[in-house]
Structure formats: C-alpha cells, structure tokens
C-alpha cells in the first residue's frame, strides 16, 4: 500500500488509533506492543475509569522511560483492586505503603535511586483524590516544596469510592455522597468548599503541573511524556469517572469524562514553573446539565423537586472556569 504524509485525517485527531498517521505520532494505547502496565485480571468494577487512567498514564511513562520506572501507590481502590494476594496486576516495580504517604515513599525511592547513581530510573507516586487531596496532602506538599524528582498522579473520581462513596475535598458542589447529606441543607455537597489541588501545586512553583481526563488520550499521553522530560516535582491530575460512585452506566465512563471537559466543569490545562502555559479549548461546548443528568449523584437536582438554582450555580462555576482559563473558542 502506497503511503503518504497526512494533511488531514479526521479520526486520527480524536480516536485512540490513527492508522494513517506516522508511527511516531500514534498513541501508546494503539500499539499492539503496549505494556499493559495494569494487567488483565484486576478486580476493578466494570467500566472503571481509574483502571483506564492508570494504564494510560503508566503505559506512557513506561514507554517514555524505556520501562525504567518505579511506582508508589496510596491506599484506595487502585491499590485494592490491583494487588489482592495472591495476584498483582502491575508489571512494574510497585509498592503500597499507606493511605497518606505515597508522595513521601516516592521521595524515598527517588533518593535511593539518586544515591545509587541510577538516574535513568524514574519514580511515580499515584493515588486517588482522597489519598492526594486529603490524607496525603501533607506529604504531597512536602514533596512539591522540596522539588523531589517525582511525578505524582492523582486519579480523581471525586470521592472515597473504596470505602463506599464518602465525600472528599475533591467532591464537587451539588454532588451527593454517603456523607454529604449530613452537612448543609441539601443532599448534595455544599458550595464554597473543596480544594483546587492543581492550582495549589502550581502555587508551589514546581516545574510541571497538568490536568487531563481519560476522554482525550492524545492529550493525556502528551502530558505524561512532557512530565517525564522534566526533572523535579511534577503533578498530573486526571479525572477518572466512577460508575459506582457517580451513578452512571459502566459504558459511560469515558463519555462522562468528556462531558466534564465539554461543560467546562473540569478545565484541562498545563502549567510550567507556576505559569499556565496551555489550555485545551472546549470543542463542542455543552451545558452542565448534559453532564449532570446521567449521574445519579446529581439526580436530586432534577427529581422530585427540580433545583434550577443549584444547576445555575454549577453552570456559573463552569462559566468561571471557561473565563479564567480561556477555554472557549474551540479548534477542531
């Protein structure tokens, strides 16, 4: 088959694969020889967004480092479903220590590699939003502040899923969890709370901070690659929908992540040395309702007593993101 350089290949832009693109511009996930860092047989729920996000990120990191990679893992779904004795799904050297110390353990591993002169070996710390934005936040901030040579990846599914969907400081306003009903007058999470950890990471002035979702693989892989080109503390915040905790069909995990981005509720951007350097413009913007409706955790906003006021407040948040990060004006 005669091959020629591509000016336009419509599915190459957004699908996982792009058979007509030059091999070096294809995604790792499209490759038959991809490493499957998180192997089949793990015990994640059907349609688990975190399982997807973890494989996307770690496969890319393995590819970028020639498999010279060690990962530390906070307690949480990812750890529990990937390594129940007697089986592990990980293909890389991996350690789980505690809920709140993944960043610090990674610092230790990185220090060991440095002291042994094994600079080729790179270290990733990973955890869910609970282990990152709540209980592990001290260690995370410490690792940032020392600028240790660690990439920390937060797989954000907006709540403590491993323990049965309790509120975390990453739970969005209006979202219902097992513990949000207790606070505030509405069943959903109260407004004006929570932590913007990517912004806090940027405030540390670390070399690289980025957000991504499992809905745009090309973007996610590019960010992991960029992160692995940089030395020092790096932070990648990936939105990974959870069918169980969000109450959507297992088939919708990728779609929900995409709607979060399309609605502007989850801004996708990159920052280097404390400055936002690039944003993913929204392609085909949607109203937040399109994102909220399919999720049972937001059902109380629609039924039995519709809450246009709350939905408007959430929309206002999306609009603020779009203004703040300049997400409007899509290129396709």
């Amino acid at each position, binding site marked *: 088959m005669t091959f*020629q350089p591509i000016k336009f290949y419509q599915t190459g832009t957004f699908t996982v*694969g792009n*058979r007509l693109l030059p091999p070096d511009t294809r995604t790792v996930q499209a490759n038959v020889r991809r490493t499957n860092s998180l192997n089949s047989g793990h015990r994640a729920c059907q349609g688990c967004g975190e399982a*997807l996000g973890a494989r996307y990120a770690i496969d890319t990191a393995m590819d970028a480092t020639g498999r010279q990679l060690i990962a530390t893992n906070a307690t949480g779904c990812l750890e529990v479903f990937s390594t129940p004795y007697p*089986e592990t799904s990980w293909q890389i050297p991996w350690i789980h220590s505690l809920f709140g110390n993944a960043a610090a353990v990674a610092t230790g591993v990185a220090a060991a590699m440095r002291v042994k002169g094994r600079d080729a070996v790179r270290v990733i710390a990973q955890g869910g939003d609970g282990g990152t934005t709540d209980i592990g936040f001290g260690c995370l901030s410490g690792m940032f502040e020392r600028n240790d040579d660690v990439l920390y990846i937060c797989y954000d599914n907006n709540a403590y899923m491993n323990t049965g969907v309790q509120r975390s400081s990453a739970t969005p306003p209006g979202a219902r969890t097992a513990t949000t009903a207790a606070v505030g007058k509405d069943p959903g999470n109260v407004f004006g709370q929570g932590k913007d950890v990517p912004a806090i990471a940027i405030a540390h002035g670390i070399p690289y901070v980025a957000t991504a979702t499992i809905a745009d693989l090309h973007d996610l892989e590019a960010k992991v690659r960029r992160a692995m080109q940089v030395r020092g503390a790096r932070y990648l915040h990936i939105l990974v929908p959870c069918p169980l905790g969000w109450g959507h069909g*297992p088939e919708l995990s990728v779609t929900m992540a995409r709607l979060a981005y399309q609605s502007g509720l989850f801004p996708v951007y990159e920052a280097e040395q404390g400055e936002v350097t690039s944003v993913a413009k929204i392609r085909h913007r949607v109203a937040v309702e399109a994102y909220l409706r399919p999720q049972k955790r937001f059902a109380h906003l629609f039924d039995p007593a519709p809450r246009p006021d709350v939905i408007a407040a959430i929309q206002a948040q999306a609009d603020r993101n779009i203004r703040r990060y300049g997400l409007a004006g899509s290129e396709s």
Partner: protein
Amino acid sequence: MMRKPFAITLDPGSSLANHTGTWRTTRPVYVDRLPPCNGACPAGEDIQGWLALAESGDYESAWRKLTEDNPLPAVMGRVCYHPCENACNRAQLDDAVGINSVERFLGDEALRRGWQFENPATPSGARVLVVGAGPSGLSAAYHLARLGHEVTVRDAGPVAGGMMRFGIPKYRLPRDVLQAEIDRIVALGVRLELDAKVERLGETMARERFDAAFLAVGAHLAKRAYIPAGSSARILDAIAVLRSMEGEEKPLLGRRVVVYGGGNTALDVARTAKRLGATDSIIVYRRTREKMPAHDSELEEALQEGVMVKWLSTIKHAGETSLTVEKMALDDKGFPQPTGELETLEADSLVLALGQEVDLSLLDGIPGLEAKDGVVQVGPDMMTAHAGIFAGGDMVPSERTVTVAVGHGKKAARHIDAWLRSTRYAKPAAHAAATFERLNTWYYSDAPKTIRPMLDTLRRQSTFDEVQGGLDESNALFEARRCLSCGNCFECDNCYGVCPDNAVVKLGPGKRFQFNYDYCKGCGICAQECPCGAIELVPEAI
C-alpha cells in the same frame, strides 16, 4: 532472585490467573452494517469500501474496488445524480461526503494513468449477445466478460454509448472521457459491432449460437403529443435535437426557443439551445418546480445560465413565430387543471421533451416475451419470460438514469452467469442499516465539504466546455477522509484503547480486532466509544 516475603510481595502480572470474564452479563460483539451510501447506490457500489482505500491514498486499489461494480467511474462521477450523497449520514453532521467527486477523481485518475481491467478469468466457453451499447449493455458486457464469457455487443448506432452520448450534452459529459471508458471495456475482449441493428433476435441467436442474450436497447422514440399547429410551425423533438448535436449538422433552433416538458432532457435541450446562441431559451412545464421530475441541481445550473421556465403552463397552439400558452392551476389532488387563461409566447421553434418510448420491434416473434406500458417485463433476475433472454436499462420498468442502467447490467450479468452455469445467483443478505444514531460523532473532526469548481457562467452560455470541474488529488483525499465509515470497523483502535481490562485483541492492519472474553467484564465502553457503531452489546445467555 530475591527472597520474597510471604504474601505481601508478589510476582508481576500474576493477575492473569483471575478470569474476570465470568462477571459479564452482556457481551460485546463486532458487527458490520450497511452504510446508507451503499444502500442507496443503484449501481450497488461498495462506496465506503473504495473510499476507505482512497483514504490511504491508494487510488488504484480504490478504483479497482469501485470498478468491481461499475466500469464507468469517470462517466458516473459526472452524470450520476448521486443518491448516495443524499443518504450520507455526514449530511447530519456538516455536509454529505462528496462521493461523486471522489468517484470522478478516481475515474479521471485511472484514465490519466491508463489503468486497465484485469483480464477475464478462465473462459467459460459460453457466448452472450448484448443488444445495445448504452450504459446497461456496456455494464453487462463488462461483467460478463470478467466472468469469462464471450460477449458480443451490437448497436444500431454509429458509435457506442447510447443515451450517454445521444442524450447527455457534452458540457456534462465530455466525449473523450466516455469513449475512453468504453474502449477500456472493449479492451477486455468484448466484441463491439456498430451500425448493426438486431432485427430478429431469435434467428440471430440460433444462427450465431448465442447461449444467452441481454437486451438493453434503451428508449429512443420521442413521445409525441398532439398540438394544433400552423403548417409553418417549427416543431422538433428533444432526442432528435440532442442526437444531431453529435453529428455534423447542428440543429437550427432560432433565437427564441421554447422547450415543452419537465424532465432532465428538457433542461439539456434548453441549455444546449442557449449554447447554440438562442437569446431566449424558455421551458414550458405544466406543473410546479416541486413537481418537476428533473434534478434540482440541473435546474439550478440551467437558471444560472439564463434558461427561463414558465411554470403551470401548457401549449395550446403553435404558430410560425409564436405559441399560445394556457395557464394551469393545481387542484386539491395536486393535478394541473386548465384555467382558460391564455397568453402568447414568441418562439422561433418548439422542442418537445415529453419522454421516450422503447422500440420493441426486435422482440417480434420471440415466444413468451411480454411488453406492458411500452416496456419489457422481467423477473427479479432480469430475465424475460423467455428463458435465456434478459433485459435491462430504460427498456424495463424502472427509473431511467445511467446509474440504474449500469446497476441493471451488473445484476443481469450475475444472473446470466448463473443461468449459463445452470445455477441460481443468490444475493448475499444485506446487513442492518448503519443509522446516524449509532455513531459517536465526537471522534470525527469537523470538516465541511469541498466544493467542486464551476465554469464561469459566460463560458457556460457560449461554449460546450464541461461545466463542473473535478477535485485535485489533495482535496479528493480530503473528501475521501470525510467518510465516517458508518457501521463498519475502520480500525481506529478505540475499542482496543478504552477497554479497562485489556480484553480487546488487536489483530493487525486489515485484520481488525477480537474480544478476549476471558477478561471482558462487559462494561460496554468499547461499544459506547466506537465512532462508527460497529460494536453491539448482546445479553449473555445465563
């Protein structure tokens, strides 16, 4: 080897032992669906198939794929009214894929590069007579030849092409293009005999030992309508006018030409008249624009070129320099009814374009053949009531377009081939339709259609140069890549990428994928994120 502590330290990837497929309640399966373009093509082209090949820039393979169904892509790329584009799902996204223009590009590319058809399979020894060298006959001849049969094409006319030559003006279909595609069919070993009218079919077949015949003589007899006319009134018929355009003597139509009728032929004549120098070229049609059988694109082009139309009008009387026209009104059933309101229209000549009839004379004396409403009756296998004699094109009941005719030729050829081998050709069952709702259009870039260049109006009014230009290589490629591949896997790797359990196996280029049901938990993300709707979820039998 390290002395691993019991239970807390584990070997890599050992979870493969855990077959999570047992969790599954629904299972994903790969399906193929019938894309609307293919479904709508009268010639039965695998449009999506050849577009896919064109997408990768492999134009020769694309052309070969195309010509498996249609030997006349350069012609079709010009004269087809492309129902495929009207059906294209992309129209609901931005604009339909410019299938017709890509087809024309491939056809022209083939002519430019001199690509030839592969020579026929092993000769079958069977002899088939094709009567009529129009689109239907040529198509049948082509397919029969490729099936290994010895084909003779006989046509009454001096040149091959039938209506493609005598019905379609050259500004729509340049003759060199037509001729080149005919020559390529002949080069397959088809015997073409011109100025050879078949008078008595039965005898001819018996005498020359033809095992089967395919009749495609078309419809060349102009329908007449009684119009009271003065002796000096100049009244011509459209077919004659268009045919004479192919000869030395150009028809004399005068400065003010009136064409009576509403079909494509009427438009062809009116536009031809313009080009021959008529100041006024007026079409008189008894109904409204909505009811006009001619294709709107043709009408548009005609109007651009200054052709005028009198809607809801009939001609009551034709004089030497003028016509009497009566205004009509549509009744509640939508039929035009006379109003008695008359007006006069200046005209040097009146051309009647009221449709054509078939010359059935060659069927005389063939037992069993029946003609109804002036056309030959055939079965679903295109065979007439007389075994071994098949018919197609304008002479059988159907829409009279080149594309339909080509389709008839292919269909007939398949049945003739089966009949000769005394079997029956069974059409493979069609897949379910690939509807727009099944697509996940997020994954397709926004890319509006490429518009083909048009000749400037001035030259369109004065010359017979081709009106519509073609696409160049780059924008033909662009256009091909706008195809959504509705309903059929095009190996975008989405399913392979989005499976949280690595339960999709990639089989390599052209081989697509398969599911590993040992690990597939049946979450359905693959189906949800498949851009073209080629994955279906079916409940597991429990």
